[in-house]
């Protein structure tokens, strides 16, 4: 069983789902002949043709609107944002039309909106964003943000088969940097379930996407000092798996949340509120968070490095917590 990248895992999921179900179609900019800006859809057009691999003008609102309309007839469109930053261009379609459709008029929208997100690649303010929290704040959507090739493939399949609109964030720093063996057969990973990546009893580190790897790196360093961290990878942000978080915090009594999203309004605040509501008496220390700065993502390497969380920052915060 060969090792594959996260990008290849995503590509495989698209191929396999389109092979499985003719109701699955792909729609987006440059996804056909060119194969997508990151080549996630490479080869799709040759195999499935123009009817199923729909290349659009540069019109994010039209892409999401058309995908929504197609889903009303029972298709399962997978729409691509060339960079997830451009989701801002179709914010209205996503949050007002798609997200509210089932609640306000009983019309389900079984579509996936996927795209490359995240920083660390010197993409600057418009090609590095983590806009997930705009959508975590939008009832009616599901928000998925995997950190491994295995999860990316299994979660994308689940997203395509889900009857609700799923936003599928693909961290572009991870696209080609991580490799792992992925089973050959059909499998899915359930939406809404976090996973414990590493077990420990001294503190809980909750994270997702690229920062899940940073958290694991930090946990390895902390282990050398005898601090054993429980590392949780959320995988899905909406709905949030609070059970897994609470179970861990009740065991470790300390909580550190790490995310690449900016600080104010990031999911750390929501998790902290949930833990305070449901496990306050289990806490031995204040809840800590390591996040990106409250700024746009800067372009120049030293600035971006300052902006992003890293293992050292996580280790430092964890040591503070361990003092309690």
């Amino acid at each position, binding site marked *: 069983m060969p090792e594959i990248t996260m990008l290849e895992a995503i590509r495989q999921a698209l191929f396999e789902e389109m*092979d499985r179900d*003719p*109701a699955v*179609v792909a729609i987006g900019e440059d996804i*056909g*002949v060119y194969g997508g800006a990151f080549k996630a859809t490479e*080869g799709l*057009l*040759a*195999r*499935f*043709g*123009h*009817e*199923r691999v*729909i290349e*659009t*003008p540069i*019109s*994010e*609102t*039209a*892409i*999401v*609107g*058309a*995908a*929504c*309309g*197609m*889903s*009303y*007839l*029972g*298709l*399962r*469109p997978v729409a691509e944002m060339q960079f997830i930053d451009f989701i801002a261009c179709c914010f*209205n*379609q996503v949050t*007002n*039309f798609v997200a*509210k*459709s*089932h*609640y*306000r*008029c*009983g*019309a*389900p929208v*079984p579509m996936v909106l996927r795209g490359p997100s995240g920083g660390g690649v010197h993409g600057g303010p418009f090609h590095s964003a983590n806009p997930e929290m705009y959508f975590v704040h939008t*009832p*009616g959507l*599901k928000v998925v943000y995997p950190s491994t090739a295995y999860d990316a493939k299994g979660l994308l399949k689940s997203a395509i088969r889900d*009857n*609700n609109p799923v936003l599928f964030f693909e961290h572009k720093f991870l696209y080609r940097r991580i490799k792992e063996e992925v089973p050959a057969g059909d499998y899915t990973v359930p939406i809404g379930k976090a996973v414990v990546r590493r077990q420990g009893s001294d503190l809980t580190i909750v994270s997702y996407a690229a920062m899940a790897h940073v958290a694991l790196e930090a946990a390895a360093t902390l282990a050398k000092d005898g601090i054993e961290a429980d590392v949780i990878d959320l995988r899905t942000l909406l709905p949030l798996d609070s059970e897994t978080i609470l179970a861990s915090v009740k065991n470790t009594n300390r909580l550190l949340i790490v995310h690449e999203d900016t600080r104010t309004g990031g999911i750390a605040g929501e998790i902290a509120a949930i833990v305070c509501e449901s496990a306050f008496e289990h806490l031995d220390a204040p809840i800590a968070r390591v996040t990106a700065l409250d700024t746009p993502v800067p372009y120049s390497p030293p600035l971006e490095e300052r902006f992003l969380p890293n293992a050292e920052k996580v280790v430092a915060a964890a040591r503070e917590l361990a003092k309690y």
Partner: protein
Amino acid sequence: MTPALTHDQKLDLYYFMQLNRQLEDRLVRLFRQNKIVGGVYSSLGQEAVSVGTSYALEPRDWLAPMIRNIGALLVKGFKPRDIFTQHMAKFTSPTHGKDGTSHFGDLKVRHVVSPISMLGDLIPVMTGVAMAGRYLGQNIVAMTWIGDGGTSTGAFHEGLNLAAQQRAPFVLIVENNQWAYSTPVARQVPIKNLADRAAAYGIASKIVDGNNVVAVYETTKTAVDECRAGRGPILIEVKTMRMKGHAQHDPAEYVPKAMFDYWKAQDPIARYESYLTEHNLWDPKKKSEIDARIEHELDADQKFAEESPLPPAETAEQGVYCEGCHTIEAEWRRPKQDVMPPASSEVAVWKVADFGAFVKTQEVATQHGNRPGHAPRHEPVLSAEKKESISGDEVAGPTGKNQPATGDVAAQVPLRVPFGRGPKDRSVELERRDKVAERPPRHNKPPHKRRRR
């Protein structure tokens, strides 16, 4: 050639228009009795648009109404009780109180997509509906409406361009009721006919008198048939007039009285009644039969709505997600193998033709006076050429209130210059001369018949 309407169909058109009007009349009364939870957006004077356009669709076709297209919902088979309960926020409404007004739909049977308040968004959505219908081999047409105001949104442009690029079986009705809330159409767009917008997308367009229900029907029916035959999207500008304010709270004092008077004489239902009488299609007895039937239906449905309960509060928490409540299955009308490999496979390369044609294009542009350095025009200059015109052009002048009721607007009103280029400016004179002397040749073929590059 559109097949003529049968006698029964002609009476049907009257029934739906009158039902539309009487229903809204009752909504206004209920509003004044404080029994309507939100607003009432009257389509008084626009009934022929909703009814005439939607009547051209077949049951398999899809539509998405706008706020003033209650008539289209009635034609598609919704009942007055649906409209009453929606406005009164009752549990028995199609949305069970989750949304109001005409914001409801039915994907399975009636093929109606529920609108949202953000204008223009339905255009890409209905384009997607049209694309999916074609993909599944259903041979459907998708239709939606947009007001004169909504044509200025980004979604309008993105959606219509995608529809054109995909040659989707999509009919867009531009319902020009001359007012976007309080702003007259001439203050929103610098063109006389909104149908002119279609040329920019390379699609066909038509203009029709929106207060003549037979003309609206026939024009739309032809467009729907052409669309179904695979000739790409069509835009129909329907010229009409909003006879009330934006909603019940708005007395519309900004509308010149002469304009209301003019359009009151164009009332679509009164005109159609005369038409039916002149053509001996009914007699007073038939009319009172239909009117009585409408009255009876509305009585029963209003009673039903008034007696219906409001939704239980706890249902507020339900239905955000589909948790198995819907079975989602596409209705295939073509073999699935057609879209699966190997049938679907193709060589993934672009074919690009005529890439040297740009030089020619530049010459054409220069010839017609699009010289660099010309400031854009800020005010509509109505062409002296009398375009295919329907009643009402004279009234809807660029200056609104003080506009004389008749006559050529361009001749009487001096250009207003918000940004410094006066009517005596040489560039204005040059531009006008260029326009008259070197008008580009009109295409005598609709875009879908022209040779494609």
